[in-house]
């Protein structure tokens, strides 16, 4: 009975580690196995209590998505062969697309934050406002986008 209880305790302690590792590996895989896309951004700098400072921005997709005055839980932006917005199912002729939602007139795909060190926050915010920032994304075949890097004038922000 005691041995069984200790086994359950070991499982209870291992479960968070396994779930956190799965979360990290899933995002790592998405970042490593998608097609690379670079898009310009404009941003500002708020703060998250859990994960720290981040640059929040509006991604310039080259089109105006989410024009309708309502929220859409399922929407996508086609990047190739041509840029266009679709509500609901993604057109089958689209080879590279990003899935997301329309919320309050904005397209959100879970890539609207870039976490940065506190000391660099104001400098990067100013550069983003001057439209010198772009994002290098990785987009999987099913439209899941993840951020690879923030670029300033085409180079990694870390090199500044």
């Amino acid at each position, binding site marked *: 009975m*005691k041995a069984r*209880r*200790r086994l*359950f*305790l*070991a*499982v*209870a*302690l*291992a*479960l*968070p*580690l396994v*779930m*956190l*590792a799965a*979360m*990290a590996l899933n*995002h*790592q895989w998405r*970042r490593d196995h998608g097609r690379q896309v670079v898009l310009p951004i404009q941003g500002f700098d708020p703060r*998250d*209590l*859990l*994960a*720290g*400072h*981040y640059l*929040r921005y509006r991604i310039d997709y080259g089109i105006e998505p989410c024009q309708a*005055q*309502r*929220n859409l*839980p399922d929407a996508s932006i086609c990047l190739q062969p041509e840029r266009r917005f679709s509500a609901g199912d993604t057109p089958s002729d689209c080879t590279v697309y990003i899935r997301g*939602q329309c*919320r*309050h*007139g904005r397209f*959100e795909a*879970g*890539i*609207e*934050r*870039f*976490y*940065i*060190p*506190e000391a*660099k926050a104001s400098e990067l915010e100013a550069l983003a406002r001057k439209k010198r920032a772009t994002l290098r994304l990785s987009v999987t075949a099913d439209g899941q986008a*993840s*951020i690879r890097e923030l670029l300033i004038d085409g180079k990694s922000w*870390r090199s500044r």
Partner: protein
Amino acid sequence: MDKLEKRLKDWRRQQLIDSDTLQRILAYESGRGHDGWQWRTLLILGLSIIGIGTVSLIAANWASIPDAIKLGANFLLLALVAAGIYLNWNDGGHAWVEALIVLFQVLCLASIGLIAQIYHLSGKPWLALGYWTMMTLPITLFARAQPARWLWTSLLLLAFGMASNDLLTLRENPVHRFSEDTALSAWLLTTLFAGILHSLSESLNWQRFRWAFGFAWLLLGLGLVTALDIIHSLHETSPRQLPGLSIASGLAALLILLLALRRDLRPMSRVIVTVVVLLVLAASHPSLLFNPGESQPSGFEGNDIRAAIVTLTVLAGGLAVSSLQGWRWAFQLFTLLIGVRFYAIYLQAFGGLAATGIGLIISGALIIAMVYLWRRSIQLFSRIRELAR
């Protein structure tokens, strides 16, 4: 200890216990003093602060350290704390293990923050909290002290509230990001959810979560009643129906069903709690008890007596249930809140100060009369019982 000793000596004087029993109880209690609640609580507080400090340290974003090293160090720290819990675990429970469980919970949350930072995730906070509650539920079940369960319960209900607000907003078509109607609806849904969890914990004998769910239900319910009172007192009711009111009705029906099945509550308590749930649901509806869209009174003076009546009825219901169940602290809390609401009536000054004064004097006299009749009825019943013997 002094209080217990005093009470034991009183029991001895009344010859309820003998001197041997008194000495045995005192010896047992003094032996427990080394691992007392003060030490346990302060240890948990200290380790929780260390956990929050770790969250802040991670949030500082050490961009110069490679991601793999940051993740590796994080998993190593988690594994060390997990090993500490495992190696010190014994069935009797230990203050250090309880404190380490709380630290482990906080570190799991910090780890989600670190992964979000490394992979630049901008998902919904309730999804992260929901993921955290799933992964930490098993270890929370192993905790014996309350803080681990209270932390878990708080974050579960926070996740539920945020998810309700977010999904209701997405379902609606608002132009604005924040809507008072949606926030109120999310609060109502979370309160009902806490009530369902509490009733389930009573029915299914989840003793370890009983207190945390019950207290959360009480706190959320009182907050909701206060919010509804303020909104209706100031005639700020929106003429349109709250989003998610049909979902709230479904949850209320489930809660009432679970209340009916509860054996720990007296039949009259079940009836009163059901009436209170229905009354709060009716007060959340825009037009059942109140007239939406009425002109707003000037300044901070709310003048709708119906809002005060709803609040006082709910509080009186809570008072009656506390009395029936013998919950002394809850009885005192509801008495205090009824007093506060009557004082607020005086400030609202319905129909002039003179009328308010007369109304309050009559209310106070009614409460005293009720207490007198109640005591008389108890005495009468006990005399009838004696005569029947």
